[in-house]
């Protein structure tokens, strides 16, 4: 078993994400509808489609280029606050993977850690604010722990999925402090955050891809 994802596989993974978020469009928007404006799924689908279009017909030298191009185009197509936030996951993975042709647990770990820092810096959210950070932060922490423990890429990613899911579930009982839901104050309690949900989906999808006989 190879413990890495190659440059071509990164491209495949990213392309498959676009199709995946297209499918999840309604579901993700429905979370946002309750305590936001109901467009999160639509916005993500539009962004991922643009990311896909940007890399579909090119052959890049390394994985970093794919991540970076994907991220910048996704960001551009999404706009809003969520564009730079969600896009940062891919642009930061891009920076980490720049010049690299094989991406292992180390690169994913470093990339997601950088993404977390960037998102918290940009958006000012901390864990507990009922945002995507609540899924991303425990997942990034779990990746780091797994890397230190020396587990396989798949196992590390599965640990991250579990952590992201837990974080996502915890957003239900939180009061929103960032984004549109913050204006609902206590009325935001009792509902799951859309961005945390889509972030959990991302880890889940990456993990599926790794385990899916593709590697």
């Amino acid at each position, binding site marked *: 078993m190879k413990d890495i994802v190659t440059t071509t596989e990164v491209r495949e993974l990213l392309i498959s994400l676009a199709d995946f978020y297209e499918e999840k469009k309604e579901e993700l928007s429905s979370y946002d509808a309750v305590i936001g404006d109901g467009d999160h799924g639509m916005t993500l689908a539009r962004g991922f489609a643009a990311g896909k279009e940007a890399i579909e017909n090119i052959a890049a030298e390394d994985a970093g280029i794919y991540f970076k191009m994907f991220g910048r185009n996704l960001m*551009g197509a999404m*706009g*809003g*606050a969520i564009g*730079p936030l969600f896009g940062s996951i891919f642009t930061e993975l891009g920076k980490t993977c720049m010049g690299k042709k094989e991406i292992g647990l180390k690169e994913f770990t470093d990339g997601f850690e950088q993404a977390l820092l960037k998102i918290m810096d*940009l958006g000012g959210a901390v864990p507990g604010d009922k945002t995507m950070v609540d899924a991303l932060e425990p997942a990034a922490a779990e990746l780091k722990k797994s890397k230190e423990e020396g587990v396989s890429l798949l196992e590390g990613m599965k640990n991250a999925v579990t952590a992201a899911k837990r974080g996502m579930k915890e957003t239900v009982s939180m009061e929103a402090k960032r984004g549109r839901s913050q*204006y609902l104050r206590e009325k935001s309690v009792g509902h799951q955050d859309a961005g945390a949900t889509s972030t959990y989906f991302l880890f889940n999808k990456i993990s599926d891809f790794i385990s899916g006989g593709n590697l």
Partner: protein
Amino acid sequence: MKKIINEPDNYLKEMLSGIYIAHKDMVTCTDDDLQCLVSKYKKEGKVGIATGGGSGHLPLFLGYVGEGMLDGCCVGDVFQSPSAEQMLAVTKEIDSGAGVLYIYGNYNGDIFNFDMAAEMADMEEDIRVETVLGADDVASAGPSAPGEKSTRRGVAGIFFVFKCAGAAADKMMDLDNVKRIADKANANVRTMGVALTPCVVPRVGKAGFSIGEDEMEIGMGIHGETGIRRGKIEPADQIVDEMLGQIVADLPYESGDEVAVLVNGLGATTLDEQYIVTRHIDEVLSEKGISVHRYYVGEYATALEMAGFSISLLKLDDELKEMLDSDAKTPFFRQ
């Protein structure tokens, strides 16, 4: 949703097309992207001024691009920031060597994208960009401590910042001075609004909240952000007293001050009502010994079809007065 539209997905594109058709003598788009609007009026060596933000606030932002005001503007979908790439495209188009000033409202999405655009402009294009964040809504948060970033939202008062900075740039001041004047106008302006009805974002199709048939919400934001007090509708004079009281106390505006006043309709509120409000503002200010240099009354920054209005006060000194009084010619604003 009672709107005269086609597919909500085409709302932005169709609306922008209409603007380019109606105002083809004044504005055009850059980068083949309708969301990137620039003025046809050019002045070599002038500081460029750009703004941007979500759509749904016409005449904000597009309507102020023209002679003596702004040079470019990027808009996103309704109540959504445009992207950093788009803002970069506008920045490149309007820079003529003297640098570019961004003036936009204090909202997360806009900040994320425009900060990125500014970084790219600097790093990739060698264009110096400065930023002034409109944060005039006294209802949205307390005043910020000295040196701290404001957490207040930007609303209609940004019109005054556009006008003063636009005049400064048109007088060929350099970027530092244009920014200084924008900062001063920004520091001197305060706004407060009241909403009577919600508004409907076309892609969403229904109102995100409701206001009772006999209710109003003082301090509601121009995207429907929760205000500071919901209650029964009161007589116009009483509403003005409450809003103006908070505005005046905040800066504060004092006896002997000279101000400009903007009475801004949020969308569905008639000009009649705006003038009824103007009348009482004039009474209150003259009682307080504050003199009014100019009134602006009408729709300057809307929240789609929301009913309600806002009051903005700009404290003037001789410099700001000169900037405010100078000519401007844009699709929506002439003076």
